[in-house]
Every structure is written in C-alpha cells, then in structure tokens.
C-alpha cells in the first residue's frame, strides 16, 4: 500500500534518501537545498538510517568525500544548489570520469551574481556537459520518484555514471503538495543493494583509482564515458518501466502532453511544465490545438526522439530558465534545434529566456507564448528567434 502524504520537494527528497539508506551522505548547507541534508541528518540522529553523515566544510569537500566513499564501495549522496554546485565543479568532473555513480538532488537556483538565491536553471546548465545523468522533475512527486530510480540507473553496469535529480528551487523545494510515497521496505527493495565489481575496500583485490591518464589513454576513457551516456537512455527506460509496474506512475525520456495532434508546442523543464499544462487545458477547451513536450531526461539528451515527437507541429517554442549569454539562445534551445536539424526536422522554432532569478512565470506568460506560436504557425515566419518573456521592458 502506498502512503498518501503532503510534503515539500525538499522533504520528499529527504524521505527518498531515507528509504535509499545510503552508506555515506556528505553535505554542506546552501539555500534552497539546505533542508534536504538537514532533514536527513535528523534521520541519522534518530537512528532510522545506517548512514555515516559527514558535515564537511565546503561543497568541494562534500563531493570529494562522496568520491572517496563511492570509490571505497559505498553508496554516497549529497545535495546542493547554485553556487554550492559551482564550488563542486572540479570534483563533479572527477566523479563522472572515475565512473562513480554518486546521486545528488540539485535544487535549481540562479548562480550569483549579482547575488540571488531564487529559482532558475543556471546551476544545472553549468554542469550539463560534465558526464552526469540529469533528470528534471516537475513537482515533488517526480523529485521523489526520480530519486528512487537514480541509483538503479547510475549503478547499472552499462552506465556507471553519477546522477543528479533537479527540481525548481522554492517553487518545488519549499511548496507543500500531495504526494504518494512507497512504503520503506518496498522502496528499499526496489533500490536494492549496491554491489560494485571493483572497490577500494575489497582486501582481496587491491586497486588504484584515478591514476595518471596521459596522451595515450584519456581520449579512450572519454569515449567510454560518452558511450556510457549513450547507453543510459535505454537503461533509464528499462528502470522507469520497472518503476511503473511497482507504482503505476509512468516515466519516459520526456512527457508528451496533448502533443499528438497539436499545431504548436512548448518545450520546457521542471515546474513550468505544470503551469503550461494548465494553459494547454484552457486553450484546448477553446478548441486551440496546443501541446507540451516536457523534458525529463536532459542528459543524455534524447535528440532523435524529441525531433520525432515534434515533427508534426507547425511552430515550436523552447523555454530556457537560464540565459546562456552567448548571443545564440539558451542551452535547451540549442540542444532541441540541433537535434531537429540533424534529424531533418525543419520547423520554425523560437527561444524564450524566462524566469531568471526567480521571476514569476504565470499562465498569462505561457498563453502569450502560445499566441505568438499560433501567429508563427499561420505565417511560417520568425522575425526574431531569441526572445524573452517576463522581462520588464
């Protein structure tokens, strides 16, 4: 029997971690993810988990401790946000390149400066090419579900990569919503035990981790890593199927919401998808055929599948909650349009940068995007592909 609860996104993540019962959690507080290790540390104090909790002196140390613990053969987790992730950045690359399947909730928040602690995706975008599997979550339920699937995905022998589970800072992390939880033993059974093939604390097989890797080797190791990322797509689908059998909740690489017969579509991630679904329903009630493609799996990026799913619409808007400051559109826009181009899908597509630094994203904003798209669909013309909404001008 599942348990009906009402929890914030941070509480939901901490409860998933409790059910996972990792060997080591090393964390340093940073808003808005602070509550996750805070709640988790009470589980440690109350003896409901067997975890060694390491209160480190910085996020760089948090990730370093996780790397050590995971290499030793344990399951290691941490959680962070924004500048905390930025301070981890060096070790983020070490974790993935050493093929250590660490799992980390990432509560998305603007990278300062000027100083801002509110939601956008600039933190996640700064590690998008770091060899981490990145799953995005629309609400607390998805943050919880994705976290329960994360170890199974990352630890799979064809993958062996770290996984981060994103959710929107404050909007999801601090908002209380209804949620359906698995019972502890059911969740724990689904996650299973971690049995690495090679690990430092195995006295029968002494190993060396992270050796020199010069001109003759690094290229091949990066190719292996890239292959692991390619393999991850099928593994994610496989684990998601298994999760669906257990919970009835269905997950894929992305969610198609009324996209099948849509004339125009929005592509976005995290909580904005929830707002967009409301607008889609309202416009559909008026007979306007709009749809949504919500990215769940951002890394590996399902370029081919997305291109195919979008191939029948007449106009597309890709919403980026981080400005890439590169004069050619946000990261998601670049990924989507590159996927479309390579797969010979030629449809007028525009980019909207929005919600920077926690700027509210309203249903009116989304309606505005759909209305722009209907115009583009009618004329087939795009005057400026690099757009903004919610910007005061």
């Amino acid at each position, binding site marked *: 029997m599942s348990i009906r609860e009402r929890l914030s996104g941070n509480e939901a993540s901490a409860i998933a971690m409790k059910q996972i019962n990792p060997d080591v959690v090393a964390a340093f507080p940073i808003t808005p993810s602070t509550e996750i290790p805070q709640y988790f540390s009470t589980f440690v104090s109350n003896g409901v988990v067997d975890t060694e909790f390491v209160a480190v002196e910085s996020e760089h140390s948090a990730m370093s401790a996780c790397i050590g613990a995971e290499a030793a053969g344990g399951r290691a987790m941490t959680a962070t946000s924004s500048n905390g992730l930025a301070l981890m950045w060096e070790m983020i690359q070490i974790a993935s390149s050493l*093929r*250590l399947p660490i799992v980390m909730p990432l509560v998305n928040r603007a990278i300062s400066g000027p100083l801002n602690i509110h939601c956008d995706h600039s933190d996640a975008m700064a590690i998008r090419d770091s060899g981490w599997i990145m799953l995005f979550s629309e609400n607390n339920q998805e943050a919880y579900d994705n976290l329960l699937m994360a170890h199974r995905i990352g630890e799979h022998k064809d993958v062996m990569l770290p996984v981060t589970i994103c959710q929107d800072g404050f909007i999801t992390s601090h908002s209380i919503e209804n949620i359906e939880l698995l019972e502890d033993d059911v969740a724990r059974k689904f996650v299973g035990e971690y049995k690495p093939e090679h690990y430092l604390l195995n006295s029968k097989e002494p190993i060396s981790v992270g050796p020199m890797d010069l001109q003759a080797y690094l290229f091949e*190791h990066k190719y292996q890593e890239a292959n*692991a990322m390619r393999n991850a797509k099928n593994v994610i689908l496989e684990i998601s199927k298994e999760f669906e059998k257990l919970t009835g909740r269905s997950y894929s690489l992305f969610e198609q919401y009324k996209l099948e017969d849509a004339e125009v579509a929005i592509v976005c991630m995290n909580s904005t998808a929830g707002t967009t679904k409301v607008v889609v329903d309202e416009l559909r009630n008026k007979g306007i055929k709009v749809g949504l493609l919500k990215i769940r799996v951002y890394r590996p990026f399902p370029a081919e599948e997305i291109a195919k799913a979008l191939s029948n619409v007449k106009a597309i808007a890709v919403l980026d909650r981080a400005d890439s400051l590169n004069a050619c559109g946000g990261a998601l826009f670049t990924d989507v349009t590159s996927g479309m181009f390579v797969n010979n899908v030629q449809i007028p597509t525009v980019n909207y940068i929005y919600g920077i630094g926690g700027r509210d994203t309203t249903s009116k904003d989304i309606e505005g995007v759909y209305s722009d798209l209907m115009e583009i669909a009618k004329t087939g013309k795009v005057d400026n592909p690099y757009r903004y909404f919610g910007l005061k001008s």
Partner: protein
Amino acid sequence: MTKINKESPWQDLTPGGTMYDAGNSLEFKTGDWRSVKPVYIEEKCKQCGLCFPVCPENAIPVNKEQKREDFNYDYCKGCGICANVCPFDAIEMKEE
C-alpha cells in the same frame, strides 16, 4: 587483468582507468623526466647516510650493510637534493 599498453583500443581499457592491481607505480619509470643527472663519486663518499633519506623517489638503493649504492636511474628525476645535502662533494650534478 589484461595487460594495457599505449596501443590498447578503448574496448580494452578499464572504466575510469582504475587499475585492478596495487604497487604498480614501480612500472612507471620516471627517469626520463630528468634533465640533470647525479653522478656518484664512490671514492669521496664516507657513507654518512645523509643522502638517501632525502631522496623523494627512493632512487638511492641501500644495501644490507646500510651502505648506499649507485643511483637507480629508472626513477631518479634529477632534483639534486642529494647533491645539495652531501658534505663531501661525492655527488655531482651533470647535464644529461
């Protein structure tokens, strides 16, 4: 563990470059990093024992009688610390 060398294809390398073996730094000869070379002048050496404890590479072998022998050039990087501590000019640094 399969023997990995500079010609190994990606399929043969271990994930993350992990070595399923310990003590293997002996196989990594660092002597070719050297640009200057210490030369041992045995007749000047008093076996005072100051040089070998300061060698960062353990490249000065010591025998059972606690006497130093000639340099192990497989690992000596030519840092010159030994020549610097020698009170008897029994180690001379020479260009490679």
